């Protein structure tokens, strides 16, 4: 039971306020799609529109080519796991899971079989006669997923289902969800503001911001080739460094003059670049420490050290007063206050124009 979901030119308004504008998107059958974005970007609204809990003002939503935005929620063949789980507090776990099936007159034998199968898969068999109030957060979360599974829906919708769990449980549940995903072959849409959840779970990520889609791509696409400055900022930790640069061209590629005058040869193609003053983006892992005084480096003073075990993040104050984050080895000997020089890897740079649109360095060596 799976489905391809087609969202076509969808617009949503609340009164005079537009929360989603002319948005199109296609989710492939069996795909795990994550809607990622800051709160208020419209990702939950989009999910609820697919579920039928919000109306669609313009555009259409279809599943397997059949239009569903005109159907009531219960008839769309969709199951949803809510952030608060929304388990019926006065029903047992078994009744919670069976409620939706009874409503469409599924025979009792079929209900029992599906409940048993879901209970086995989620290891909640011993909880079936309990009420939600007697369950831990993690158990409730499984029951909520179980309630979705037994419906054998065309698509699963998850609305930030991990955000009510504590940090340790969240990591464990994330792994379990990834495993579940391999067993239950179905289309899944997962809404989150947590980039790690998005990166680890998704086949493809839809990054949303301010009523619109910023980028759709695989997690590595999003990370390595962010389509806009917003995506570059929102995805990745620590956040990408941005430097104002002056551009020139050398053999078809761009050469950036850094704020301190150093020259950085990039592998960003120069054709089509018109503005000479743009913003260069580079992640901390492409900024390395080197000996002070070397040619074309950026000198600075280490202000903060974050030792993460496997690597060390250096927050370096440059001469012009701006801050840049560099990465060093886990056993780094750098101390706070050290004067160091930074060298930038021109093959891992991004260029953002005044509108925030991006161009990326090409990995020449690897074709």
């Amino acid at each position: 039971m799976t489905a391809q979901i087609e969202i076509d030119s969808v617009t949503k308004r609340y009164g005079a306020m537009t929360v989603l504008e002319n948005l199109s998107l296609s989710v492939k059958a069996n795909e795990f799609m994550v809607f990622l974005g800051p709160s208020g970007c419209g990702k939950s609204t989009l999910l609820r529109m697919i579920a039928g809990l919000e109306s669609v003002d313009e555009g259409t939503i279809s599943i397997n080519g059949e239009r569903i935005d005109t159907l009531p929620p219960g008839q769309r063949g969709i199951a949803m796991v809510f952030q608060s789980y929304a388990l019926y507090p006065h029903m047992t776990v078994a009744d919670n899971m069976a409620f939706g099936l009874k409503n469409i007159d599924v025979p009792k034998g079929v209900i029992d079989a599906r409940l048993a199968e879901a209970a086995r898969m989620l290891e909640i068999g011993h909880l079936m006669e309990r009420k939600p109030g007697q369950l831990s957060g993690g158990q409730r979360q499984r029951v909520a997923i179980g309630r979705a599974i037994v419906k054998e829906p065309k698509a699963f919708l998850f609305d930030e289902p991990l955000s009510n769990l504590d940090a340790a449980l969240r990591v464990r549940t994330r792994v379990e969800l990834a495993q579940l995903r391999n067993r239950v072959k179905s289309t899944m849409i997962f809404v989150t503001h947590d980039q790690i959840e998005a990166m680890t779970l998704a086949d493809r990520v839809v990054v949303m911001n301010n009523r619109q889609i910023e980028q759709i791509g695989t997690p590595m696409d999003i990370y390595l080739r962010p389509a806009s400055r917003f995506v570059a900022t929102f995805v990745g930790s620590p956040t990408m460094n941005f430097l104002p640069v002056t551009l020139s061209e050398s053999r078809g590629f761009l050469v950036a003059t850094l704020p301190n005058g150093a020259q950085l040869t990039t592998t960003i193609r120069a054709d089509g670049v018109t503005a000479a003053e743009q913003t260069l983006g580079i992640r901390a892992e492409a900024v390395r420490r080197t000996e002070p005084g070397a040619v074309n480096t950026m000198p600075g003073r280490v202000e903060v050290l974050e030792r993460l075990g496997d690597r060390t993040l250096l927050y370096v104050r440059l001469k012009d007063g701006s801050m840049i984050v560099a990465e060093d080895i886990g056993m780094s000997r750098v101390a706070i206050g050290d004067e160091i020089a930074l060298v930038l890897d021109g093959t891992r740079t991004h260029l953002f124009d005044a509108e925030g649109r991006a161009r990326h360095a090409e990995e020449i060596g690897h074709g």
Partner: protein
Amino acid sequence: MSTMTATSAQTGTGPSGMVGRSTGDRVILALTIATAVVMMAPLVWVVALSLKDNKELMASMNAVFHAPYTLQNYLNILTTSSVFRWILNSLIVSGGVTLGTLVLCSLAGYGFARLNFPFRNVLFVVVLIGLAIPEQAVLIARHQLFSWLKLHNTYPGLILPWLSAPFGVFLMTQYFRAIPKELDEAALLDNASRFKIFWKVLLPLTVPAQATLGIFTFLSVWNDYFWPLISGTKKEMYTLTVGIASTQTNFAQSEGLGFLMSQAVFASAPILILYLFFQKYIVTAVSGAAVR
């Protein structure tokens, strides 16, 4: 006595519950107990009278303070009093109103809290304004309306006016609004109809509010005096309040003082016993309704 005040000083939560205040505490406690005794005195007096033979009372009221006591007055109730009929009437009326109120207000509360329909907010505000209408402002017209409909001296006549009270709608709407909306949405995705969501998913969660509203309504109707006085004017349609009132119009001349008192005690016993058992709920219901 001293041990009681000592415990109160240790476990009290108020300002006087602190260490080193026990003398003041003891005085306050003594005063409060004295007030309670004064408070109880009239009740005890009535109960004492109900246990005395009438001839003895006629001779001297001081007979109340010594034996013999008798249950004869209570036995007489069984044979000669209409009080059973009145209690039955009150039960039918109070029960009917309570049931009707719970049904109407639950439905309306769900409707106002969860469903959108044209003019919903305006209607809700109008209902809220209805809270401020005192009974007396509608009584006379209502009485005339019921005369035309020939509803006086009938159970529907005694029950129906209460079903228009806006308080329950207000209470239930507030309560439904406090239930997370995700439950409705989960049920919608579970293919449940609006009525099924109301009946199977939300209504079971409103039991505390139903109890509050039910107790408050039952007590208000049970104790109401005005409407049954003007609507249930036939003796066999008297409610308990009107019936008891009818016996006491000129009891100064009554030769059955003890009987009268026993009837009053008998009539108030059920509600007092209920009060002792469900005190917490009754207090919550009544004070909750007062503050709204």
